[in-house]
């Protein structure tokens, strides 16, 4: 079933569909950061305390989807290179844009992003101190829970990391715009009459995902640089006092 060229496309489409659904749920979860510390901490705690078979079942299912999606893409690309060993002297396209032509490139960068993101916020090996952030805010009782809110704010206060996240989300947006509409073609559910509508839906979905994910790092950076107050200002005190210190120093000098 999955060994033929079409079978591999079914695998790409089905695993892609799983990941398309996942990014929406993930984005909806993230947006709770905007609702404040209690909301996002309670949500994060509820996910982390799911029964182990549901938590690890979902994690393994998603991991398997990513691995199959990436591995199948890799084997398709190798086959495609063999099928067209010589390039044209003049390479042109009539209809295809970079979004569809560069799926391999955007996908590879996204794969690297996923690894970084897991090490950053899930396994927390890049900044081990994130694991020790705890609070009772958002907890259902008096016990301490992981302070996801503080971790996210601390994470996105790094300009370079935030920019990498936003760029990765833009690439995800482009990857989804072609991928989402291709799902329907690959499993045979698209017709020319529906193609325009499906392309629009896929494109709209991709931009919603981009906006939904980017708003968190962008808002954190905006508040850090004093452009707008999205979150409780007490979480930005260190930056404010640093700024005051610098301005005091400047005043003293003058």
């Amino acid at each position, binding site marked *: *079933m999955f060994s033929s060229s079409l079978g591999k496309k*079914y695998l790409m489409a089905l695993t892609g569909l799983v990941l398309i659904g996942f990014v929406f749920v993930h984005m909806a979860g993230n947006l709770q950061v905007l609702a404040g510390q209690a909301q996002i901490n309670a949500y994060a705690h509820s996910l982390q305390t799911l029964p182990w078979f549901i938590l690890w079942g979902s994690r393994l299912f998603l991991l398997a989807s990513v691995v199959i999606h990436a591995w199948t893409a890799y084997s398709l690309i190798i086959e495609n290179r063999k*099928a067209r060993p010589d390039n044209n002297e003049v390479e042109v396209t*009539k209809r295809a844009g970079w979004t569809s032509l560069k799926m391999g490139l955007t996908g590879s960068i996204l794969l690297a992003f996923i690894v970084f993101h897991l090490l950053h916020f899930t396994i927390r090996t890049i900044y081990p101190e994130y694991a020790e952030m705890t609070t009772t805010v958002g907890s259902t009782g008096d016990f301490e829970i992981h302070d996801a809110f503080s971790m996210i704010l601390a994470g996105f206060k790094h300009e370079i990391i935030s920019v990498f996240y936003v760029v990765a989300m833009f690439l995800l947006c482009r990857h989804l715009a072609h991928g989402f509409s291709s799902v329907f*073609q*690959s499993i*045979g559910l698209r017709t020319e009459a529906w193609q325009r509508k499906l392309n629009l839906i896929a494109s709209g979905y991709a931009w919603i995902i981009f906006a939904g994910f980017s708003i968190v790092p962008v808002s954190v950076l905006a508040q850090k640089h004093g452009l707008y107050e999205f979150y409780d200002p007490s979480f930005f005190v260190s930056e404010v006092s640093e700024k005051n210190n610098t301005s005091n120093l400047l005043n003293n000098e003058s």
Partner: protein
Amino acid sequence: MKLTLKIWRQSGPAENGSFESHVLDDVSEDSSFLEMLDQLNEQLLKQGDEPVAFDHDCREGICGTCSLTINGYAHGPENSTTTCQLHMRKFNNGETVTIEPFRAKAFPVVRDLIVDRSAFDRIIQSGGFISVRTGSAPDGNSIPISKVDADKAMDAAACIGCGACVASCKNASAMLFTSAKAAHLNLLPQGQAEKDARVINMVNTMDDSGFGNCRNYGECSAACPKDISLDYIAKLNRDHAKARIKEIFS
């Protein structure tokens, strides 16, 4: 008009090819692209050089024999046009025109611009045959076919098998061709009995011939001189999935 032609020359399938430049004067704007190549070959013969080998037959845009990648486009930059129906008025005086063979591993170069497209014949052969009455004309409406299905089957049958879909695809995929040939019979009542076997066999032959995989670029349909729709690829995907699922349960 005066043109500089940058043409691929390759003396045989096992030889290495390279580009060769020729200047051609007094090209009529009204001549077709193939007539322009005829003019070049006359010039080459007069000089005592080997003429350029290229495929051509009906020169009416219906046989699918002519090929050529012109300035990077299969059958040239015009839409819905075969090379033989492309006219020199679409080019500019003094222009350099790059002419290459259709490039794909499954289409080995025979000589110069001629490629071996017999992989397409093998795909059609593996699709098998259907049983139809070939004596006198059948009675009207003896086999009811809806107008919609008849039109769709006719649109698929418009494929002339030229290979522009493969040449324009960055992955040299033959999905548009295979899907058109499969859909042409799969849409009609006469083709229903062998539908599942046809799809599986044609896809297997397509894979074995060394064509690439479809990545939904849409370049094939854009280059197709008969405007075969991507719908047929979706239908092939659908019919193939159904056939494979039935195979599991049978």
